[in-house]
């Protein structure tokens, strides 16, 4: 059962340190072949401080899973939408403070019955400057 009461304010930040090994592993898993994700010398030659983190890398920030998410029935969970807006990209060595908030919960009835939509927004900050915003739409089939 999904309650609108999970809509709320931005959580306290969780700090993630971006590791070179994690970037390489993630880049390899998505079939990336650009050396800026694997070879620090190439990245530095491009003027980057270290390896660049792929655009979707913040999806790996999963240390602090909120209660409402762990309680979702994974059999009924669909990923509807995802977006990333970057002010500044992430690099290996960065320490990123990530907050999250559920910004909306609503229901729609479709041909397959009731669907519950949950909108989650996460923001990444470095020294209080906003680096990126990630927005995810989760869809729960069957609703309440």
């Amino acid at each position, binding site marked *: 059962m999904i309650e609108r009461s999970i809509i709320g304010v931005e959580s306290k930040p969780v700090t993630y340190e971006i590791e070179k090994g*994690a970037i390489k*592993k*993630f880049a*390899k*898993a*998505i*079939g*990336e072949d*650009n050396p*800026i994700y694997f070879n620090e010398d190439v990245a530095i030659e491009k003027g980057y401080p270290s390896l*660049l983190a*792929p*655009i*979707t890398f913040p*999806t*790996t920030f*999963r240390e602090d899973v909120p209660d409402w998410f762990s309680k979702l029935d*994974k*059999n*009924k*969970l*669909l*990923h*509807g*939408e*995802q*977006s*990333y*807006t*970057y002010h500044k*990209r992430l690099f290996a060595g960065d320490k990123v403070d990530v907050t999250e908030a559920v910004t909306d919960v609503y229901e729609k009835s479709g041909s397959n019955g009731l669907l519950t939509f949950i909108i989650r927004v996460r923001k990444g900050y470095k020294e209080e400057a906003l680096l990126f915003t990630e927005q995810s739409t989760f869809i729960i*089939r069957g609703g309440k």
Partner: protein
Amino acid sequence: MEQEVKATFEKLTKPPITRMQLVKYAGASGDFNPIHTDEEFALNSPMKGLIAHGMLSMGFLTQYVEKLVGDPLKIKEITVQFRSIVRPSDVISLEAKEVVSINNLQKLELHAKNQHESIVLKGEAFIDK
């Protein structure tokens, strides 16, 4: 409303999705939902079989956009809708069209399609000029 297409880019076709790739993506992303890696769980679920992480297809799409744009740091925003499921052995192709420019940003319309030409992912990206 259809937007005027200013340019169409060459598509990129990725190698077929493998189960090993889903295991690796689960490990690298931390998304251990068994629907992606546990065949028995997946067969008994409403999905009736393993499905690929939507975020894996989004990863393909961001790679493709970076190849088109050249400088990865120029990509300011990318949004996708997951339209249909992707399964192991599916072959994903990425397509892009340049549409309007808004406030110094180029807008690309993006699609990922499977081997049956069905749209699995629809998106847009905004690129610094």
